[in-house]
């Protein structure tokens, strides 16, 4: 309430202040995407504890608009001097299209040299639908939809979505009722479609005959009269509802432009065209689900477009607010009993707050953006150019007292249930290796003589993976996750994975359109930097600190972002030994750590790496100009990897190559090759192609 009054008073003071509906454009070109809160080592702008200082002086645009921030009070917009606003307890939230998370922000060396980050431009281009993953211009009208992979759309892109959906008339032809009638739509492979239709027709005929014999009006009456038919009636009804819903799904996906130009789709069939469209829809709406019409996907398809747009808006706002305030607590530590507690300085028990949610809601409400209609009105009254560098001032709830520039953080990884046994027998038949406890990532804070768990997320541990041996053949190898105490000394933004020679060559190639020619190229997606990279968008490198002048020991284990979200959330998901996090959480995590621990910015780690390999009669060459953009924690961050519970017969891992069932080899397996980079990689698992 105090905050609202302060804004009101300051607005009153500025008798000449115009409540312009658009951002002041004069002198606005030099606004840095990294606002005051994004400066290295700067404390979060939402101050922990204590009362907020007095209201700032209202800036007058004539003084220079390049340092202004927008405030919205009771739907009225005005402008404040951003510096004065920060000093007065406002948090400046970057709404600009050139925003990046802290780790990709422009940084400056102590001597004032700009430390350019190669990937920043690509990140911004991807978020604005202007560049593709390689950094080449995106054809006009193309969309990236990369939020699921850690790159949220810019507010400019969201504005386009809101305005386009408002004008789109095709949504009126879609039956929301039919979509809501089913929870999921059963997947039937295209080649089994005909047989399935015949089976359903037969079932329908049988039930119709039974209905006539039983002299009842409907199949529902039949099921009631003779319960032995109830299951069959249910199946028939469900499939009929699914068929009707499938038609609406197709209409909805077409209306939203999810079928890419050039893709083919046969109506009513869940073919590749349909699967790709569903995947795009999931990417657009950040749905962590396999590419089928399962519950979360169906829920989103049944929601009005404006509601989905607003959910996307709130997710994007969350990333901006979390970044501006420098917080991490996201409610992931809550249990059925509620939020855990800690003892504050006064000796009282205080609940651990979900700051990501709390601060985002607070910002949305202050700005009048907490509803779809409010957000739509906001986008309608601002021209697209406003979002180029727009910054917004909000008064966020006070941060907990344990916040500060140097927090005693540490990481614990619990490997959960671990199997060392081979997952198949001598004849190649797979045997299940069920896990009750999955690997989890914990971020702790030591404060006031207690250990406070700030965040807990699912992660991965290693397992059996395919690896290419020196004889050119693939074998299986157990690639486990090391146990014990480590540290993270280096955090690399936009990391590059140097594929070791053990990487199966098939995962190092992809086909790509190059200057109107469809050709095979090195799969740089997996090498990085990029959201699809084996190391994701950011990685923390686990090492055992060297003693007595010896260098650190690096066994290649990292905790890194990953686009392979199914490997993190699936019961069958494993890594090559690294601990994967969804990219957006990895970005939050490392941005948070870097802003609350002493660190040094090392900048771009240039290198001139090249390696050739043969495929058929063509030579392919990997060329990597940089390892990524590095930050060094001083002191390093402690990490403890817990062993977990070892299941099965073997109590220690097999350390040699194991031949794949059914493959003819030229001789016995060669010795295994070890390299630090061999713990990452995404493309190849122990599963056969086609297995989910």
């Amino acid at each position, binding site marked *: 309430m105090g905050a609202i009054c302060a804004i009101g008073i300051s607005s009153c003071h500025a008798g000449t202040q115009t409540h312009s509906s658009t951002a002041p454009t004069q002198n606005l070109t030099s606004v840095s995407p990294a606002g005051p809160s994004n400066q290295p080592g700067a404390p979060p702008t939402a101050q922990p504890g204590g009362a907020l200082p007095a209201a700032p002086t209202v800036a007058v645009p004539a003084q220079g608009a390049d340092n202004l921030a927008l405030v919205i009070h009771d739907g009225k917009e005005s402008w404040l001097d951003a510096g004065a606003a920060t000093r007065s307890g406002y948090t400046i939230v970057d709404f600009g299209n050139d925003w990046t998370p802290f780790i990709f922000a422009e940084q400056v060396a102590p001597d004032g*040299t700009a430390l*350019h980050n*190669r990937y920043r431009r690509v990140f911004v281009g991807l978020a604005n639908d202007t560049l593709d993953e*390689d*950094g*080449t211009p995106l054809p006009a009208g193309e969309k990236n939809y990369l939020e699921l992979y850690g790159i949220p759309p810019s507010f400019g892109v969201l504005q386009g979505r809101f305005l386009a959906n408002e004008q789109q008339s095709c949504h009126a032809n879609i039956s929301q009722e039919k979509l809501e009638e089913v929870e999921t739509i059963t997947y039937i492979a295209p080649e089994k479609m005909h047989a399935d239709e015949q089976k359903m027709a037969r079932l329908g005929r049988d039930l119709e005959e039974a209905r006539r014999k039983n002299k009842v009006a409907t199949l529902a009456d039949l099921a009631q009269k003779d319960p032995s038919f109830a299951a069959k009636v249910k199946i028939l009804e469900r499939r009929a509802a699914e068929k009707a819903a499938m038609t609406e799904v197709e209409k909805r996906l077409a209306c939203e432009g999810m079928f890419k130009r050039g893709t083919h789709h046969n109506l009513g069939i869940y073919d590749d065209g349909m699967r790709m469209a569903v995947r795009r829809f999931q990417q657009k709406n950040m749905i962590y689900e396999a590419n089928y019409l399962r519950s979360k996907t169906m829920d989103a398809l049944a929601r009005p477009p404006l509601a989905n747009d607003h959910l996307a808006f709130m997710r994007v706002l969350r990333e901006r607010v979390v970044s501006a305030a420098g917080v991490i607590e996201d409610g992931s530590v809550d249990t059925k009993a509620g939020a855990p507690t800690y003892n504050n300085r006064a000796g009282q028990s205080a609940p651990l707050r979900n700051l990501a949610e709390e601060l985002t809601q607070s910002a949305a409400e202050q700005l009048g953006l907490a509803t779809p209609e409010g957000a739509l009105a906001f986008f309608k009254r601002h021209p697209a150019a406003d979002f180029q560098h727009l910054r917004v001032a909000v008064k966020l709830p006070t941060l907990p007292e344990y916040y500060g520039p140097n927090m005693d953080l540490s990481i614990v990884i619990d490997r959960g249930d671990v199997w*060392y046994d*081979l997952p*198949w027998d*001598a004849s190649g038949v797979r045997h299940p290796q069920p896990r009750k406890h999955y690997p989890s990532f914990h971020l702790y804070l030591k404060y006031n003589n207690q250990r406070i768990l700030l965040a807990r997320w699912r992660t991965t541990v290693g397992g059996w993976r395919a690896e290419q041996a020196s*004889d*050119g*053949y693939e074998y299986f190898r157990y690639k*486990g996750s*090391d146990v014990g105490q480590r540290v993270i000394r280096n955090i690399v933004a936009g990391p590059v994975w140097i594929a070791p020679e053990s990487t199966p060559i098939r995962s190092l190639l992809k086909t790509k*359109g*190059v*200057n109107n*020619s469809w*050709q*095979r*190229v*090195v799969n*740089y997606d997996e090498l990085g930097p990029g959201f699809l990279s084996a190391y994701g968008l950011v990685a923390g490198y686990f090492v055992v600190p060297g003693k007595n002048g*010896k260098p650190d*020991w690096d*066994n290649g284990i990292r905790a890194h972002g990953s686009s392979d979200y199914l490997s993190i959330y699936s019961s069958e998901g494993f890594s090559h030994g690294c601990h994967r996090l969804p990219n957006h959480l990895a970005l939050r995590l490392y941005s948070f750590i870097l802003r609350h621990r002493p660190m040094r910015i090392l900048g*771009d*780690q*240039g*290198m*001139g*790496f*090249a*390696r*050739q*390999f*043969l*495929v058929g*009669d*063509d*030579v392919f*060459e990997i*060329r990597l*100009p*940089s390892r990524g953009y590095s930050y060094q924690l001083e002191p390093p961050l402690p990490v403890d990897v817990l062993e977990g519970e070892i299941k099965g017969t*073997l109590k*220690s*891992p*097999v*350390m*040699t190559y*194991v*031949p*794949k*069932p059914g493959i*003819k*080899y*030229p*001789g016995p397996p060669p010795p295994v090759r070890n390299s630090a980079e061999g713990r990452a990689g995404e493309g190849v698992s122990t599963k056969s192609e086609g297995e989910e």
Partner: protein
Amino acid sequence: MRLCNLSTSLPGWLSRRWAIALTLASLALIASAAVLGAGKAKNEVTPAGKADGKADVKTDTVHISFQTVPPRKAMVKWGKKSLGVIPVPRPLVVERPRDSGPMDVVIRASGYLPVHTRAYTFSDSRVAVKLTAPAEKKTLFGYRQEAPQNPDGGVQVPEPVAAPQPQ
């Protein structure tokens, strides 16, 4: 200084012999550039940007020099577009807008296997590509020896071996 830049930017697979050859080629290039003067910018090798991506002076364009080892006349194609033929002993120099994204090119020289490689547009750079004759392809990683007709297949379950410990 240019020579230092050149030799330190060579990829690891280049032998010392080829490094010397490239150095000599660069010397010839520098000499010819001096003779030709500044008017023929497209045929010059401009100093490579710093390895850390920071160029001293940032222009709107970058120059990418294509060379082969051993030096051979080779066609450089970028998709359907031909970028030109490497005019040995000089490199083929291509001008591109800075930060316009990478170029996936194919370099074809008569008597050698085609090489697919990538050039970047962050800064001026050299792409020195090693050529391999078909008879030498067994020296390349990924070359796969044929399996005998009747080998042992199936699955072996080896004994566990202790994991390596940190030093």
